[in-house]
């Protein structure tokens, strides 16, 4: 099962090496060596760090690195587009640097470090010192073998396929994003969409508060509906897509807009046309890598939107209130409440259907929360890989912070914990739902959600 999970990451790694080899022609030996070293160190580094520190920290390091590389890609793609339209654009020695062996080695080792780390994060927690050592060792060995396989494959590629540095960076970053998008804690697309959604949400609110969008009868429902669209997650998704794909599209445009070499000095027509045709062919081949990057980024979006993760999301148990208006959940029911999993319940009262859950956090603290937050539509929460996830905006919430109010956290509900179990007041529960969750739905309806 672990091997299956590793396959996409290892394929991405092989492709990265293949592109590096082609992107730095004549540096095959150096790229191979540094790629193998980078992957091995990345694997070992992740394993060591995850044992010494909370697992979240090495994952955060990888995520931050991939995020920075994406930002770098943005800068490079804008520069590439600008350069394609301006002759004699100053490169400040970048070309000389890219032609040096140092650039090839650095790229190979950096890609190897991140790819090795990502692959290592997929290794299962195995019991026993020998097994714990063997799994990363096998992974590093596989990574090294794939480097040599990539070297063999690269030799079979047509010599017409050349990769300029900007396209190489585009493809490498796309592969890293693809590789990380299948891991909840490394995925960047969902958080990006969420940031866009919340950014737009806050921006519109600022407008409302500054009365640039007056809450007046003059604002008719169709206008509210249009404004309401800005609050949906779809805006975040499409906005995220724009940010996500723009660098690759800019790289494509940069290649497309690159001027053909001047042939005015060639007297013979056939020779002139042959030079032109060769330049056009080269240009077409140069489009291959940005197109590949675009495809890989698309695959990353798909993985992010439909993660291959089985969420723990039990069907809510319907409970009823006592004549005194109290809801009781026994501590030792069919399923004990202290198993660290979400226990979902449904209460129908006061004309409402209130969903809530009980969760015991890893530090043993029990919490009762609505199955909804105060910001998003109440699509509810699921649980996976030590986190709780908001289905609507894909925000990941660490189990330790569930029970604290604010942001996309589930709305906490007052309760009493006793020896026998959890006691709640039905009216307080319904009011809490009405005041927070239903408020977001009402706002949504008013605004055309």
């Amino acid at each position, binding site marked *: 099962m672990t091997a299956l999970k590793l396959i996409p990451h290892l394929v991405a790694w092989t492709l990265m090496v293949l592109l590096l080899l082609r992107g730095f022609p004549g540096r095959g030996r150096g790229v191979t060596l540094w790629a193998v070293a980078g992957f091995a160190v990345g694997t070992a580094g992740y394993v060591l760090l995850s044992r010494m520190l909370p697992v979240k920290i090495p994952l955060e390091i990888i995520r931050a690195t991939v995020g920075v590389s994406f930002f770098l890609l943005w800068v490079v793609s804008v520069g590439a587009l600008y350069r394609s339209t301006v002759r004699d654009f100053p490169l400040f020695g970048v070309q000389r640097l890219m032609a040096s062996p140092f650039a090839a080695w650095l790229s190979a080792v950096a890609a190897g470090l991140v790819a090795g780390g990502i692959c290592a994060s997929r290794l299962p927690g195995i019991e026993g010192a020998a097994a714990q050592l063997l799994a990363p060792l096998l992974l590093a060995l596989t990574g090294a073998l794939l480097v040599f396989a990539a070297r063999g494959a690269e030799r079979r590629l047509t010599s017409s396929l050349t990769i300029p540095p900007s396209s190489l960076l585009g493809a490498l970053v796309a592969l890293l994003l693809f590789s990380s998008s299948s891991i909840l804690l490394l995925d960047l697309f969902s958080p990006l969409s969420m940031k866009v959604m919340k950014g737009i949400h806050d921006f519109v609110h600022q407008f409302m508060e500054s009365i640039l969008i007056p809450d007046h009868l003059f604002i008719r429902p169709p206008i509210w509906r249009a404004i309401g669209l800005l609050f949906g997650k779809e805006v975040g998704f499409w906005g995220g897509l724009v940010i996500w794909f723009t660098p690759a599209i800019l790289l494509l445009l940069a290649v497309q807009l690159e001027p053909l070499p001047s042939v005015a000095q060639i007297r*013979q*027509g*056939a020779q*002139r*046309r*042959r030079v*032109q*045709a060769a330049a*056009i062919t080269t240009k077409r081949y140069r489009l291959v890598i940005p197109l590949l990057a675009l495809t890989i980024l698309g695959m990353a979006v798909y993985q992010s939107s439909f993660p291959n993760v089985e969420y723990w999301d039990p069907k809510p148990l319907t409970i009823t209130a006592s004549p005194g208006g109290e809801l009781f959940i026994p501590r030792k029911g069919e399923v004990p409440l202290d198993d660290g999993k979400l226990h979902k319940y449904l209460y129908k009262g006061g004309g409402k259907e209130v969903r809530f859950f009980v969760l015991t956090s890893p530090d043993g603290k029990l919490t009762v929360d609505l199955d909804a937050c105060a910001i998003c539509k109440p699509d509810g929460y699921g649980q996976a890989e030590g986190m709780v996830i908001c289905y609507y905006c894909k925000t990941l919430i660490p189990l330790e912070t569930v029970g604290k109010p604010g942001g996309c956290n589930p709305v906490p509900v007052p309760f009493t914990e006793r020896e026998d179990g959890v006691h709640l007041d039905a009216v307080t529960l319904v009011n809490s739902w009405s005041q927070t969750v239903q408020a977001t739905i009402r706002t949504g309806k008013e605004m055309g959600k």
Partner: protein
Amino acid sequence: MGSMIIETEGLTRSYGDICALKPLNLEVPEGEWLSVMGHSGSGKSTLLNLIGGLDRPTAGTLKVGGEELLGRDEDGLARYRREFVGIIFQQHHLVPYLTAVENVMLAQYFHSVPDEAEARTALERVGLGHRLKNRPSELSGGEQQRVCIARAIINSPRLLLGDEPTGNLDHKSTVMVLELLRELRLEERFTIIMVTHNQEVAAWGDRTIYLDDGLLVREERSSR
């Protein structure tokens, strides 16, 4: 005359039991106009197809510009035909629904990229500046053949092959086409190998070889 553009040794082409071209040793210097004569079925077109890379021999060697042609794969042969050879056929083989200039541009397209201005100039060189937009059906036989010449030379070939290019033309048109070829050869310095069964046409060349039943039987220098 410079170095040899064509060198064959024991060049043979058989179709089953029929030997269309018997072992042929031939050398053609660069820039020569070679006429190939013979009766129908004597192996003239077979020889031309082999030199043009349209067919592969059964045995023997064929060097073009010092390079062995038979070692090339299909892509290599296509590149050879595209960049090295221009061919003029008796039946013209012009695309009927394209204009004269488009027919010439089609050859440019398969060679590299089309360039209309250059195609127009080529047609003007063969005296068809006023017929650029006419389709083949709107041109006389002689005019069609001149379009074929423009098409054949547009990619600056080193070798121009003609398979009875004047076979369907009247005397006046024949002379016009041959004069045009002679003029272009002087300007472009390409080699011409022209198959014909007309002694008068063959005499336009520097040298004539005679094939009979696939065998080279005689050769003579032109006094022209």
